[in-house]
């Protein structure tokens, strides 16, 4: 189906594992089992089972993906919707276990939780900080230590003591981002670039991420925007239909992707 195939994948053979390798995918495949018709109830299941008619088709979200990402790299992943970009992030963050192949990740992974997921509207901002921090795997003590920083970064003032249902959506997003960014992770996962809050807050977010990078954090950034890819990332991969189409310097990957684009 591809009209303009990249004649030569830019690079394909990963370097050997070293202490500088933060993420490594070895022939990773992820399979979703999609039932033909969604079986929503036990009764339906029992009936179908008796008739011997449970069929699903396999959908391979990732196929034979081999990648290697080094320390302190900002690595971009580009591709169309449904190409498997987010699935890569899910495999790195251990949400999905690879069906085939092997994944190695070093250090602490910080997923960027869809902001506000896991918040409870009846709890106060303060209580939600502790709940959300715990969801991100932080201990009570760690959250206490960073609480003042979160408070300052989210800039909610007196609202921190009010229930979350009284917050505007921008305030919820700010609080969510502040909790997520309170600790320097070894690997940071970003799904699309952030569009949180106003211009000033967005700048603050970008500065925070930049300071992580300067400090050695590896960033895995998923995007479908070429200019974001080229300005932020040095290395990149183009994923199409679950396969790596090419890997290499982001400029080259961007060119390949742009020329292919119908």
């Amino acid at each position: 189906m591809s009209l303009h195939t990249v004649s030569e994948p830019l690079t394909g053979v990963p370097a050997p594992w070293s202490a500088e390798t933060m993420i490594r995918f070895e022939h990773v495949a992820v399979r979703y089992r999609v039932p033909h018709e969604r079986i929503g109830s036990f009764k339906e299941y029992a009936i179908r089972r008796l008739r011997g008619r449970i069929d699903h088709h396999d959908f391979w979200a990732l196929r034979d993906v081999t990648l290697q990402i080094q320390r302190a790299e900002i690595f971009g992943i580009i591709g169309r919707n449904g190409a498997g970009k987010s699935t890569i992030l899910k495999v790195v963050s251990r949400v999905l276990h690879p069906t085939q192949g092997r994944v190695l990740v070093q250090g602490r992974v910080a997923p960027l939780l869809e902001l506000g997921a896991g918040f409870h509207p009846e709890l106060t901002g303060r209580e939600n900080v502790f709940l959300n921090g715990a969801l991100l795997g932080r201990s009570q003590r760690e959250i206490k230590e960073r609480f003042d920083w979160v408070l300052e970064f989210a800039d909610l003032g007196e609202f921190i003591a009010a229930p979350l249902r009284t917050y505007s959506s921008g305030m919820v997003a700010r609080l969510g981002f502040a909790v997520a960014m309170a600790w320097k992770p070894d690997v940071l996962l970003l799904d699309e670039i952030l569009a949180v809050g106003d211009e000033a807050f967005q700048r603050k977010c970008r500065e925070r991420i930049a300071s992580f990078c300067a400090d050695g954090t590896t960033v895995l950034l998923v995007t479908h925007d070429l200019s974001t890819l080229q300005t932020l990332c040095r290395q990149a991969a183009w994923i199409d239909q679950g396969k790596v189409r090419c890997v290499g310097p982001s400029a080259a990957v961007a060119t390949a992707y742009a020329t292919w684009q119908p």
Partner: protein
Amino acid sequence: MADTLSSYDSDRRPPPVVEEFLQAMRYRDLIRQLVRRDVLIRYKRSLLGVVWTMLNPLGMMIVLTLAFSSLFGTTRAYPVYVLSGLIVWTFLAQSTTTAMAQLTWGGALFHRIYLPRTTFAIASVGTGLVNLVLSLVPFGLVMAFTGSPLRPTALILPVSILLLALFTLGLGLFLSSLAVYFPDIAEMYQIVLLAWMYLTPIIYPEEIVPPAYRWWMFNLNPMYHLLQLFRLPLYDGRWPGLAHLALAAAIALVTFAIGWTMFTRRADEFAYRV
């Protein structure tokens, strides 16, 4: 510095049954937060708050006493009898039901971040435990009111609670692993729960069951043995026998082991399913 970093290798994971246990330990603060959240929310929007946790079984007890005290008039201190049963049953019913519901709620999170999959079930049982301990307060009042003495046998209560909690967690995990695939299990379970309650001597005295059925009905019912761990020391003022204790412990441990194994072995699939 590289050596100090924890690393994840998808090929070298401990068996799921063990891995889940280690992860749940690591996320114990999350479990605490979830329990805290559930208890807090309960009183946030109501005037009486936590008092409801105490009034609930008390109200049930009053209604049942009014309805049945003439029927079961021969039962000594019927309010104490029925309340000791209700506390146990409420714990089982609430914890298992919320464990299932929470997993569906948490499903949205399982798609995005890694969490040990058992946290929600453990937290549900934890919330149930808080409520159980709270409801011991009105229970003590009812005992005092009816002139039933509190005997030293009540000291066995921590053991009873532990075994009941293990059994409940096992059952909750077992049900949750089914509910992920078939949401209507939750509906079906409510019916089963009701039938099960009437097959367990919660609100009626054991003697009203015809002797011919009694042995089968009670001995084959795991909840009967666990219930007795509460009723014997609290109502009858007797120590449960060693054989009884061993049987109840076996029931609790086996149920827990089955539920935990079944749940953790499928937990990897949940992210695809929930």
